[in-house]
């Protein structure tokens, strides 16, 4: 049986609706289902053009990679942990339906209520109706990439509900009305002076502040009022444990714990892939997660929720939104292992030098580039090519997602779907034709070298010569290797 709800045609955007995601990533008012094969390259070029900012961003992100390196060096069983994590996830995916049913059963026994959402739209409607039924108008939210993926905030705001993102980085980008640029450090693309100016404009603080401690204190006081006034809280889920029906949320700031201990309603949103089988599987992931993400041995708070608080309600929303489709695809299945640590972004030489916003999707970087094309291959066709396939991401990934192999597989799939830009296709056809014939290869090779050696510089380094913008072409030798070798052999 095939469920037609799983969106496979590239006619709708990442949130599964035809509502333009214009407010976040698409050009204003534009439909978001047309091919944008050069999008990353264009945005990246703009990012690179500001040389000082480029290097600042690259160093900032590399710093995270360095922290990950140092802390993982102190873990003697690091590679065994990665293998164990990979295998636990692979096993879980092979019985995922059973584990989710077990999780639901146990969660209900503990007093939680469980809802299922096929896509972003259903997720948003489910969350909204839970809030609306209870007359909730003020919500605090701790970090959930899933709710970002579903564009929950604008959905609720359009319906008159105030949603305050309480993670400091997320609050900053929320106030700036822009998407996060990194899944763990949402505001890493901003300088402290910019944040100082933002707080001055939006929170009424003094002008020209830039001390991070002071700015954090301002945010603390501001958010504290929001926690105390909140009528409901929305959180993500890092791990849902089938064995117990409980789930775990990992944070550093304490925002999830403040949010979930005050208002009488807690809505926890999770993708289907967040389930793990048993409690004893948890430490494998907990020992890898924070070390991979920020270089800490563990986050400040690792909160275990088993049923609602006394006198409060707990609702869990389990979301598919394309994940069952990915599960079906053997070549991409391992991307569902992802625990959203961000290590791949931190190591990616392209992400570091182009920034999260160049990707045009909720989750950027290597993992984003293998997830996004599932829902809208045309809109995100530039992403698998925003990579040199260097493989560093795959080697830092705590759950061993074969990211750089999946990027290559995506390239082939996009090629077959005709979503590769025309110029590449033509060059490839032409190159393929020549290289399939030894005589043509030798002839055009020699011809090319002959011309290159004689054409005036201005002709060679014309405006269509993209290589030649910042690089010299290699000097054309008079003889190719085979000619020199043949001569040496007296042939």
């Amino acid at each position, binding site marked *: 049986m095939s469920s037609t709800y799983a969106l496979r045609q590239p006619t709708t955007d990442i949130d599964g609706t035809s509502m333009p995601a214009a407010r976040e990533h698409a050009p204003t008012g534009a439909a978001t289902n047309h091919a944008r094969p050069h999008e990353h390259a264009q945005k990246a*070029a703009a990012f690179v*053009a500001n040389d000082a900012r480029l290097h600042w961003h690259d160093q900032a992100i590399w710093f995270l990679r360095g922290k990950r390196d140092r802390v993982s060096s102190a873990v003697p069983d690091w590679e065994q942990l990665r293998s164990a994590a990979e295998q636990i996830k692979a096993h879980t995916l092979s019985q995922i339906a059973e584990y989710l049913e077990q999780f639901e059963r146990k969660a209900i026994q503990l007093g939680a209520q469980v809802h299922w959402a096929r896509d972003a739209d259903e997720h948003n409607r489910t969350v909204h109706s839970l809030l609306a039924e209870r007359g909730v108008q003020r919500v605090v939210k701790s970090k959930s990439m899933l709710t970002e993926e579903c564009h929950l905030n604008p959905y609720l705001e359009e319906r008159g509900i105030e949603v305050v993102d309480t993670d400091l980085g997320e609050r900053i980008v929320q106030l700036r009305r822009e998407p996060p640029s990194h899944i763990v450090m949402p505001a890493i693309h901003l300088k402290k002076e910019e944040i100082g100016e933002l707080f001055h404009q939006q929170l009424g603080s003094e002008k020209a502040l830039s001390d991070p401690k002071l700015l954090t204190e301002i945010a603390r006081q501001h958010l504290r009022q929001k926690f105390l006034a909140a009528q409901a809280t929305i959180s993500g889920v890092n791990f849902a444990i089938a064995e117990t029906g409980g789930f775990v949320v990992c944070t550093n700031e304490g925002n999830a714990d403040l949010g979930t201990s005050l208002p009488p309603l807690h809505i926890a949103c999770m993708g289907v892939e967040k389930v793990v089988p048993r409690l004893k599987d948890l430490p494998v992931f907990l020992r890898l997660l924070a070390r991979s993400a920020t270089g800490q041995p563990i986050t400040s708070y690792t909160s275990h929720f088993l049923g609602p608080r006394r006198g409060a309600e707990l609702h869990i929303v389990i979301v598919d939104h394309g994940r069952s489709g990915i599960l079906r695809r053997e070549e991409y299945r391992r991307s569902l292992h992802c625990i959203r640590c961000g290590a791949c972004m931190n190591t990616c*030489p392209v992400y570091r030098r182009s920034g999260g916003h160049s990707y045009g999707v909720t989750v950027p970087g290597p993992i984003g580039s293998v997830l996004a094309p599932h829902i809208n291959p045309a809109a995100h066709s530039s992403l698998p090519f925003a990579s040199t396939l260097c493989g560093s991401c795959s080697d830092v990934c705590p759950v061993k997602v074969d990211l750089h192999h999946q990027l290559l597989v995506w390239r082939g799939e996009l*090629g077959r779907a005709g979503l590769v830009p025309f110029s590449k296709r033509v060059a490839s056809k032409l190159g*393929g034709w020549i290289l*399939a014939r030894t005589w043509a290869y030798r002839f055009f090779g020699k011809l090319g070298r002959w011309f290159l050696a004689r054409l005036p510089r201005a002709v060679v380094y014309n405006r269509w010569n993209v*290589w030649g913008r910042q690089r010299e072409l290699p000097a*054309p*030798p008079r003889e190719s290797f085979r000619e020199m070798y043949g001569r040496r052999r007296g042939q």
Partner: protein
Amino acid sequence: MVEVGLFIPCYVDQFYPRVGLSTVELLERQGVKVDFPQEQTCCGQPMANSGCFADAAPLARNFLSIFSRYRYVVCPSGSCTSMVRNHYRNLLPDGPELNEMRGKVYELCEFLHDVLKVQLRGRFPHRVGLHQSCHGLRELRLGAGSERRIDGFDKIRDLLSGLEGIELVQLARPDDCCGFGGTFAVYEEAVSCAMGKDRIADHESAGAEIIAGADMSCLMHLSGLLQRQKKPIRVMHVAELLEEATV
């Protein structure tokens, strides 16, 4: 006597013939019989890299038919070798010919290190920055890499260790990508050059006179930047370096 089929990457054949000659020289000095089948052209990586697998597949089939007869196939390029060993299965159906080829195609350094087990002695009194080409490093595992927490090893370093006077400089980022990435170099030109310039800056700070590596594609990109900026650092393929040093 060890007999190998020599596979020379298309761009090495056309633009860096000396790398090919150095490869032959190094192998012959070890008593290897080298055969260069003239029909060869290209492994198909540029097409596959662009997502045009259908254009690459015939080249993969040609490669197999040209090289299957050899006991070993040796190539002075990590990315071309990885294309055959790891990615031909994306282009062609599984089969005995492909599976056999995957086990017998070698990049030059890994062939010298693992199969011939050479201990090269010589002299190369220069400050050398070793560029760890990504495909060689992370796909062929020529070295441990900076990401994984395993015992360190580096086959290229081992090959260079017998050279008197050589100083391998200490880089701030030992294996950050140079930014070539095949068609990436053109289609994401801005990021590609930013990455290459950062590599060069690292080698400069570390005092390298020569940037050496096992993939001429990376070196072509870095050299292009160095020459445009008129910088004195030069590039050498490890094959050229070893040939010169162990005369």
